[in-house]
């Protein structure tokens, strides 16, 4: 097991040894800003909400092509870079002149105070590598994770449209093979970093991860660290023992198996979004308003379930799809229906020595209607005030034969509106039945008031979402 990790920065392989004493929970942002050569990357929030810290990570795929993904460097722990290319705003201009995205930003007046600009440049760089002539929708999606307080975004959108027109070809394209070769030279084995106060394991296989977890049941597992990272950047906690499962290829697969699909717990939400689009549109729809592109590029499905948060966005949808959670411990596998998996406030049936390895979802029949809704103060990059995911099946007479009304944000955990569901069963799926069910929801939920909204608003929104679902099934 190696006690160092390596990544590419500024065209060379950087290797950081545990001996260096650098805490393994140092964020990529902290690391970069500590160096005189990388002051371009900015901190605006240290919590993944502003994108000023955006960098791009390059990874080599099997064919040796490099794929690029924008991430918030404030939420990535340095060892998570192992085997990747780290691209910063200082890296993207060719020897003379500017990169096309930089040129376009100058031309359109895309920077005013300029503090957000390096982050935007990196999101634009990733966009230019991944999309040719992107639509407004794709541009918006790529830039959602970057806040700008000065420009009103219009010139930045124009810069994206003007510059992402080269099919991803730029001066990086020529060097790709060299970079891929350098990445291949980095050994992919397991890593263990021990410093005075911390132990950071980065197993390379699931088996190893499970045995580590078996030995260290108090260790904190991290998938994408988009949730755990905040404990470091905001609460300044010292995480003593970490098992980072982000390097385990086995956990990343998303596979369509005909009547069902399996999503790996380590798959990024971006990958899940992509592979869910055809068969599970309500899941993809929820992911389209989940965090930002930067967040979805690192956050994992396993991590979202791992938080078991009552305002987490995956649970209600998985309730509606009647998903099964796949768990694995040393020499033991379990499958638990998601509706049984969550047992209380941030409490699940997962045992401390188990990992969530994936989620299995059966494809709903053609008669089932499944929809998801998210109510948040801001449409994008916001946490749900209330979320709802619903599934309806009707019998030949048009009566409700099966119904799931799953809500987030309405109780201490993801919860179904049991009274409303019961009321609807066997009734015709019409407005008066739906209004009858809406009236019963006060029995199902007593929501709280908090920074996001008051209890009354939550109750109104929860009722209305059912009506919205009904309305959407009328078309």
């Amino acid at each position, binding site marked *: 097991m190696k006690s160092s990790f390596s990544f590419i920065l500024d065209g060379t392989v950087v290797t950081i040894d545990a001996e260096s004493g650098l805490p393994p929970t140092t964020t990529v942002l902290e690391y970069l800003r500590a160096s005189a050569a990388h002051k371009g990357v900015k901190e605006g929030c240290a919590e993944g909400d502003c994108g000023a810290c955006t960098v791009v990570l390059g990874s080599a795929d099997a064919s040796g092509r490099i794929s690029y993904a924008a991430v918030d460097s404030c939420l990535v722990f340095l060892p998570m870079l192992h085997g990747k290319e780290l691209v910063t705003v200082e890296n993207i201009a060719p020897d003379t002149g500017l990169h096309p995205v930089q040129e376009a930003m100058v031309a359109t*007046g895309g920077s005013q105070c300029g503090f957000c600009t390096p982050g935007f440049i990196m999101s634009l760089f990733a966009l230019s590598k991944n999309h040719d002539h992107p639509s407004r929708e794709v541009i918006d999606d790529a830039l959602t994770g970057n806040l700008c307080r000065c420009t009103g975004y219009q010139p930045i959108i124009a810069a994206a449209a003007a510059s992402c027109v080269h099919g991803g070809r730029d001066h990086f394209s020529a060097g790709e093979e060299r970079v891929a070769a350098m990445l291949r030279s980095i050994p992919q084995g397991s890593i263990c970093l021990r410093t005075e106060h911390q132990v950071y394991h980065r197993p390379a296989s699931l088996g190893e991860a499970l045995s580590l977890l078996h030995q260290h049941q108090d260790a904190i597992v991290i998938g994408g660290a988009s949730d755990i990272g905040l404990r470091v950047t905001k609460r300044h906690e010292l995480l003593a023992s970490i098992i980072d499962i982000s390097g385990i290829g086995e956990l990343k697969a998303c596979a369509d198996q005909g009547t069902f699909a399996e999503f790996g717990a380590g798959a990024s939400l971006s990958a899940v979004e992509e592979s869910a689009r055809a068969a599970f549109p309500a899941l993809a729809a929820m992911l389209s308003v989940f965090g930002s592109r930067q967040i979805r590029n690192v956050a994992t499905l396993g991590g979202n379930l791992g938080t078991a948060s009552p305002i987490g966005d995956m649970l209600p949808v998985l309730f509606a799809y009647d998903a099964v959670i796949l768990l694995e411990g040393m020499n033991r596998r379990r499958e638990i229906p998601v509706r049984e998996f969550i047992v209380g406030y941030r409490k699940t049936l997962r045992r401390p020595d188990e990992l969530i390895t994936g989620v299995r979802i059966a494809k709903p029949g053609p008669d089932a209607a499944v929809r998801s809704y998210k109510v948040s103060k801001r449409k994008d990059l916001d946490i749900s005030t209330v979320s709802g995911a619903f599934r309806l099946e009707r019998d030949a007479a048009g009566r409700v034969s099966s119904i799931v009304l799953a809500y987030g944000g309405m109780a201490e955990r993801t919860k179904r509106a049991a009274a409303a569901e019961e009321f609807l069963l066997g009734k015709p799926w019409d407005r008066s039945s739906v209004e009858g069910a809406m009236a019963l929801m006060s029995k199902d939920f007593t929501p709280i008031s908090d920074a996001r909204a008051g209890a009354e608003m939550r109750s109104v929104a929860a009722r209305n979402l059912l009506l919205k679902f009904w309305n959407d099934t009328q078309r």
Partner: protein
Amino acid sequence: MTGAAGHTTNVVPHESAAKHVTGEAVYVDDILVSGELLVGRVVTSPHAHAKILSFDLGAARAVPGVHAVLSSRDIPGVNDMGPVVHDEVCLAADRVFCVGQAVFLIAAESAEQCRAAERLIHVVYEPLAPILTLADAIAQGTLLGPPASIVRGDAASAIRKAPHRFSGELETGAQEHWYLESQVALCVPGEGKELQVYSSSQHPSETQALVASVLGIGKHDVVVEVRRMGGAFGGKETQANHTACWTALLARASGRPVKIRLFRDDDMIMTGKRHRFLSRYEAGFDDRGMLLGLSAELHCDGGCATDLTFAILQRAMLHIDNTYFIPDITVVGKAYRTNLPSNTAFRGFGGPQGMAVVEQVIDRVARTLGLDAAEVRRRNFYGTDSRNVTHYGQTVERNHLPLLFDRLTASSGYAKRRADAGIFNASHEFVKRGIALTPVKFGISFTTSFLNQAGALVLIYKDGTILVNHGGTEMGQGLHTKMQQIAAREFGVSLDRVKVNATNTAKVPNTSATAASAGSDLNGMAVKNAADILKARIAEAIAPVLTGGNTSDPTRPEDILFEKNSIVDGRHAGRSISFADAMPVMQRLQVSLSASGFYKTPGIGWDSVKGTGKPFFYFAFGMAVTEAELDLLTGRHTILRADILYDVGESLNPQIDLGQIEGGFVQGLGWCTTEEIKWDDKGNLLTHSPDTYKIPSVQDIPREFYTALLDNVPNPGTIHSSKAVAEPPFMLALSAWLAIKDALSAASNHTKEPEFSLPATNEVILLSLEKLKAR
């Protein structure tokens, strides 16, 4: 289609654009400092109101790596930060007045050591009852100062006699600046008492004054430098002083360079915001919707100290008319003390809060009478020859409102789209559309008249390059770019010959804040003044050189032109010398190549006690038409389209001006829709990070967004006939707010006045709809 027809000549990119996009642009936190640098940390009050009974710093001071732990007792100078009224301390002494108020300072070698030391500070507080809402402040009468009023005619009787009248109340919310770069300062001690301060401040002269005063030293020992800010929006006009003073105290105590950069949440918790207002109004109007009388009482939450509150309240009172002639009017303003951080300048400076009231009034007039709101607005516009005097007695000159209205209603297709929205609404039960036009008239000048002054120091070097220093600061608004353009135009040289220096108090002293949208107006004139002085000197000295042997027909200084990188005799094209070649000649001829310029705005002045006079040099005008779609089941709005037409006179730089307009509009959109600030009942800020405080993202801007500049409207008497931009576009977002209200009102087919406040969050909308249903 974003348009700047007729303004295309001055398009040059922001002078720092290439540095922004490569990450080379240096902000305070990026300045390279030696390994001696210490990290500073501010320890703040956990109570909204409390007595400090005792504290012990001994254990904190003993933490390894800690170099200074300071309390108010360690301030060598004056413990005061109040920019106008001296009611705000630098560090709390015996009482704290809000959560987040600075009490102690720590400097250590690492942030971790700072936190370790903080945990060891032991303080005993005796909590006192706080005042946390405007309603409580009004009930308890915690006035910050005497109420102010502006009165014309007899509003009460005009309203009484009017054919129609109503009264109402409007709440407009606080707003967090959310500059991307949080507050930051770096202080480097020099020899003796000298201190070099790098600050992200809109007002370096005041930062310098306050640093000198808390340290008890002369201003000449303090140099404040501002290269650029990562956004400010008013939030660094006075509030940057605090961070700079805290840093200075630590640098003085430790004898080492110290930097304080507020963590985002700390910045949000500690610094003041846009003032929230509770406004009560009564209006009288006739059958055509003409306003006959308006009586308004504006109550604003100043927070725990005065800061700029009275100037902000005054601007709200001066803008309650917006673009409307109101024959009889009484406006009363009252500012209250509460136990929240002292509220402060924010783009618009009270203007938005004042205008929101009259726009809400007009909106209600239109709904009451069943008239088109845009038409009611037009009818009430200030006239060009009559009905053109404001409630404070200033005549509205060069009134472009009719022009803006005609062009904008045509280009936006207002009438047809309004009709279309009605048709859409008739066939959609759960989705409604609304459309609104709102105008802006904004007074340009500091209302504290003497502040309307600026200085510049222009240096020409022997190689012909020019260094411009001026008192204004760059916060992204493109001021330095405009100053570079002005200097280049005045000297007739290409832009690359001119560089604008970081703002530095050792170069230009005693400046006003870069604020009130007046940065280019004032500093541009000062730069021009310096250029004029230098050009006169150069012309005088170069004339004999250009004359050469032609003594019979000599070149006269008054014939000299500065153009195309050359100095030429306008009467003899052959007699010319390149600008660069001329400068060594100047040195040989012993001509001084540096000059300071100065400018003060002429012809303004007013009596703020009586509320009459001419506070503004001129008015900026703009207008917007915005259409919104509202999902009645979720309360979510979408801004479908916004059309803006704006008057910048002759634009100094159309790309920068359009950027200011769009950016201001979107910032205003945030204030009007999703930016909601909440405190708990102990005075803790609940929305203390971007997790819960939501400024507009790229997805929130109008789906179609058209911005254009009014052409052929030179503004006499200003720098290159331009007009200010910066603040006024912010208020155009009221069109979005009222478009949302129009959609909401469509839920009752416009038969009922919906409950509405600002920001119109999805919560406000859903609850308002519930009430509409219940009525």
